[in-house]
């Protein structure tokens, strides 16, 4: 019921929303929880295991019960806390974990089976038989127990990520945080003030009382205004700091558009990574429930929540309210209720010596021992020395004391300590380097203490940053505020029969924890896993301390010895979509396009990914119905006329300096310092462990200038390796290198007519004498400075021609047109692959990281005259044995003509089983030139087995082929074509 009053709602602005299909009205400033309570809705959820009717427990982000689903399909958010969700016109929320409806939930029958569903139920029940798990238990349990569900559709909302930096991060904006932010800002620090609520003020928004002679709420508003006007304060509202990480890094989730309809381009959430030099944690304290029989009925809530709904939202959560607690705060709540004109049916204080000045039915030394009412609270039973009295009530506010919200202080493995005086855990200094906890989260509960600690923490932070030197330290004048001592008598669980809830979200009762202890799950971490206490979206914020207190009692230990479970990030739930913001689909990784990309796409060439690059598979022609037809045709271009292929994706590195040759000698197994200017040499690069890292050609353009090529796949790795060798191993070498992969567009021009084609474009024509095989140099192509290399990855007479990338598209277009006029054309990766398999040229399919130079038959390339990376390790006996798997060629010779990459090799007539494995195929292609499938692979002792027969067996695809083992070079073994 809505009350009169001056809450933080805008009564001039009505908002209509829907819950479970019904329309309701609230005001701007309402949360879904406050608006539902204003509309008299108390039943909002069903519990996890027993499907018990549940209402709203809290007024904050720790809410365990009132979880709803907002949105549908790709925009569906499950487990949204109604206490955090602000209402807006058109908001649609539905309840969860009920069928067919919240009011009538079939699975509520679980509640009757409660004795069987206690602690360890899963472990005891689902032991056997194994098949029952998949077929019966898992599906049934998934259906019966749970919270909200995701839609299963791809996310359609936009999520954002962001980076922020500050000198001082202040987390929380209650009295402590506001004073800390002001103090730090006035000392000249760049401040970020992060607040999970929509408005600054923290508990001041929900409580009465005064600061500096004005209502605390007004003081908070004035402070917020003052901070907003300062140029060095960044206020981030609706932003929950979710984790504390190494080096002053914090994760924070900003709810950008949960309080309004999504607009185009607007992110729903932004996940911030905040780098802070110092941090003041000022996140207050959370009130804890008391366990008593049936303390989970709709209408039972935290006393502080009752107070917040009355003061902040002007909503009376009941007409007959009972307050029950073990500390002074219920008296403050009672005073506020009376001031708001809300009827108090009873004020029950468990402390025998408690007194009360208010005009309410007061029960000292009393406890609530039970409640009545199925879907809404109807009555409570109050027990005291004189007996048990039943009192009609529709709302019960409970307070078992306050737990400092110290979760973030524990995120780097720190353990809090027990403070007997306030019966709560408090953080120790230095648990997170650079973070100072202040105010209620540090165990200081009075408003005056909070204000003081806020100032002190900010001063300490500024001192550490040396900021007082810049601007004289001007401590803000300390505002006056209440400074009463905190008085509490611990009460965790009221003795008695029946179920008394500790963890509302996971349906864990006092009995469950005791049972865990009885079954010897005495460690708090074991108890947690056995009972599931403290799991799921609220992570036990409402139950951890009570549960471990009950465990401590049941095991005869004290609370400090029992200890807490580990608090880990995130403090509040973070959607995976927020953490992966922007990284879905194309956002996963950059796309790299060659300069010929647009023309490639225009030619309808299917693309394949090569690392981050996109390259054409083949260029289809009208009438071709399979890729093989296109591929065979393109192979023919190169073997018979001339083919054009964009090879810009290969890594290209310009290497300069007087020690460039010596540097290359160290990198490659073979010698480069002896390479003549104007010549190219093939090089093999090993890792230091003696295995092949990469291969490619390196050209010498001048005495002190080489240009190296790497494979497309290993370009980044090779560059990093070179940096390591240069900086970390041989900084004495005077060598400089830079990637020019992006600078040059490079095209292979391959085939018998390659030279004729090029001579039509080069300013100075070339011939066989001036440009023999493996020659290189600078050229002019249609007036543009370029580079020409006579190298071949196809075994044909071929060149690679490079121009600055701006001319790449234009040159590709021209080369292709000229080639077509000569009976050739562009070729893609499929043809390139066939061409190189015919020649036995390797790629990373062969040099896959586990092979040595010896394995691929290049042991002769390992120079004996000089040191090189990998030389020492490559000499290890195990890497040069005769029965190692060696590179071989394979040709089908039986009835089956198909070869498959990935298939394994077995001796002819041997059983194709794992122990009999002789090797495997790495590359396979159909050679139109030779009219046969050809394969490259590795075979035990393969070099000595040429001419022998093996069987290829592909167990996955069910193909067996008899093969002849042969030399890996199938075509033109003397290399005459390329020298032509």
């Amino acid at each position, binding site marked *: 019921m809505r009350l009169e009053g001056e809450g933080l709602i805008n009564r001039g602005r009505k908002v209509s929303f829907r819950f479970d299909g019904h329309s309701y009205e609230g005001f701007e400033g309402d949360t879904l929880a406050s608006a539902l309570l204003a509309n008299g809705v108390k039943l909002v959820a069903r519990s996890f295991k027993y499907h018990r009717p549940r209402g709203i427990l809290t007024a904050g982000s720790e809410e365990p019960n009132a979880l709803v689903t907002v949105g549908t399909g790709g925009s569906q958010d499950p487990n949204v806390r109604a206490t955090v969700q602000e209402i807006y016109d058109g908001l649609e929320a539905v309840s969860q974990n009920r069928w067919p409806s919240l009011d009538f939930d079939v699975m509520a029958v679980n509640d009757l089976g409660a004795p069987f569903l206690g602690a360890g139920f899963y472990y005891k029940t689902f032991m056997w038989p194994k098949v029952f798990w998949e077929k019966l238990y898992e599906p049934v349990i998934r259906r019966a127990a749970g919270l909200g569900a995701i839609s299963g559709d791809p996310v359609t909302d936009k999520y954002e990520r962001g980076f922020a930096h500050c000198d001082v991060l202040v987390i929380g904006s209650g009295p402590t945080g506001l004073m800390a932010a002001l103090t730090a800002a006035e000392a000249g620090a760049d401040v970020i003030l992060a607040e999970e609520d929509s408005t600054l003020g923290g508990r001041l928004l929900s409580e009465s009382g005064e600061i500096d002679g004005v209502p605390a709420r007004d003081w908070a508003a004035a402070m917020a205004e003052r901070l907003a006007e300062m140029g060095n304060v960044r206020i981030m509202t609706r932003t929950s700091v979710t984790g504390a990480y190494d080096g002053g*890094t914090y994760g924070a989730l900003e709810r950008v558009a949960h309080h309004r309809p999504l607009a185009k381009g607007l992110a729903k959430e932004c996940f911030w990574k905040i780098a802070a030099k110092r941090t003041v944690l000022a996140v207050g304290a959370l009130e804890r429930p008391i366990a008593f029989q049936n303390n989970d009925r709709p209408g039972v809530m935290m006393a502080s929540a009752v107070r917040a709904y009355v003061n902040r939202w002007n909503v009376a959560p009941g007409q007959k309210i009972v307050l029950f607690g073990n500390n002074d705060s219920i008296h403050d709540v009672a005073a506020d209720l009376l001031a708001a004109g809300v009827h108090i049916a009873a004020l029950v204080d468990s402390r025998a010596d408690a007194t009360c000045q208010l005009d309410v039915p007061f029960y000292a030394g009393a406890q609530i021992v039970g409640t009545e009412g199925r879907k809404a609270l109807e009555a409570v039973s109050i027990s005291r020395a004189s007996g048990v009295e039943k009192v009609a009530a529709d709302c019960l506010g409970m307070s078992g004391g306050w737990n400092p919200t110290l979760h973030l202080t524990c995120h780097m493995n720190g353990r809090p300590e027990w403070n007997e005086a306030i019966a709560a855990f408090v953080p120790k200094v230095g648990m997170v380097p650079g973070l100072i906890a202040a105010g209620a989260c540090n165990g200081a509960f009075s408003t005056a203490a909070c204000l003081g600690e806020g100032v002190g923490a900010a001063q300490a932070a500024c001192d550490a940053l040396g900021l007082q030197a810049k601007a004289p330290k001007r401590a803000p004048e300390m505002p006056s505020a209440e400074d009463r001592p905190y008085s509490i008598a611990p009460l965790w669980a009221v003795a008695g029969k029946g179920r008394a809830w500790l963890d509302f979200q996971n349906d864990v009762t006092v009995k469950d924890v005791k049972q865990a202890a009885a079954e010897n799950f005495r460690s708090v971490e074991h108890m947690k896993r056995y009972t599931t206490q403290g799991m799921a979206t609220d992570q036990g914020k409402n139950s951890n301390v009570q549960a471990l207190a009950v465990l401590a009692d049941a095991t005869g230990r004290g609370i400090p010895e029992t200890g807490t479970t580990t608090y880990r990030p995130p403090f509040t739930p973070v959607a995976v979509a927020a953490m992966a913001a922007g990284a879905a689909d194309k956002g996963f990784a950059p796309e790299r396009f060659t300069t010929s990309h647009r023309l490639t796409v225009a030619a309808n060439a299917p693309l394949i990914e090569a690392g981050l690059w996109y390259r054409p598979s083949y260029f289809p022609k009208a009438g071709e119905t399979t890729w093989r037809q296109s591929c065979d045709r393109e192979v023919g271009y190169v073997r018979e006329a001339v083919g054009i292929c964009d090879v810009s994706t290969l890594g290209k590195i310009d290497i300069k300096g007087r020690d460039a040759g010596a540097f290359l000698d160290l990198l490659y197994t073979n010698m480069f310092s002896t390479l003549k200017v104007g010549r190219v040499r093939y090089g093999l690069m090993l890792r230091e462990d003696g295995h092949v890292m990469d291969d490619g050609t390196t050209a010498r353009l001048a005495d002190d200038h080489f240009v190296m090529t790497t494979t497309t796949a290993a370009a980044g790795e090779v560059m*990093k390796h070179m*940096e390591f060798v240069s900086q970390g191993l041989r900084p004495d070498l005077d060598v400089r290198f830079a990637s020019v992969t992006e600078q040059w567009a490079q095209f292979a021009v391959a085939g018998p007519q390659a030279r004729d084609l090029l001579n039509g474009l080069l300013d100075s024509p070339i011939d066989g004498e001036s440009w023999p095989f493996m020659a290189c140099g600078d050229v002019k192509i249609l007036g543009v400075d370029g580079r020409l290399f006579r190298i071949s990855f196809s075994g044909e007479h071929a060149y690679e021609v490079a121009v600055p990338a701006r001319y790449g598209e234009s040159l590709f277009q021209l080369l292709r047109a000229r080639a077509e006029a000569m009976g050739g054309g562009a070729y893609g990766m499929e043809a390139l692959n066939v061409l190189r398999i015919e020649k036995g040229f390797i790629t990373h399919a062969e040099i896959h990281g586990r092979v040595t130079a010896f394995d691929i038959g290049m042991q002769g390339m390992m120079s004996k005259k000089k*040191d090189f990376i990998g030389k020492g390790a490559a000499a290890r006996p195990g890497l040069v044995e005769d029965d190692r798997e060696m590179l071989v060629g394979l040709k089908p010779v039986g009835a089956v003509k198909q070869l498959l990459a990935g298939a394994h090799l077995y001796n002819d007539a041997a059983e194709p089983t794992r122990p009999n494995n002789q090797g495997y195929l790495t590359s396979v292609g159909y050679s139109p030139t030779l009219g046969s499938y050809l394969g490259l692979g590795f075979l035990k002792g393969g070099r000595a087995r040429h001419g022998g027969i093996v069987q290829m067996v592909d167990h996955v695809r069910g193909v067996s082929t008899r093969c002849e083992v042969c030399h890996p070079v199938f075509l033109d073994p003397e290399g005459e074509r390329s020298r032509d």
Partner: protein
Amino acid sequence: MRIACPLCGERDSREFSYKGHALALERPGEDASLAVWDDYLHNRENVAGVTQELWFHDFGCGSWLVAERNTVTHEFGAVKLAQDVKEARA
């Protein structure tokens, strides 16, 4: 985690990649025994405490770094250019 690159200043760890112990800078000579190579390539102390590590500032300046890091607390100590470390030892 944040790493203070001697050239770029303090940067988010996402800009860096990790290689392993700085022992990798002590490459054995050509004629070293296989046992020495085995140590260089494979054998490392698994320290609970301060260790010297190689990091590469991939997304930044391209420097190889030798960083002192406590494997228990993740706290960084001095971070130096690998080149400087290597040259100082030469």
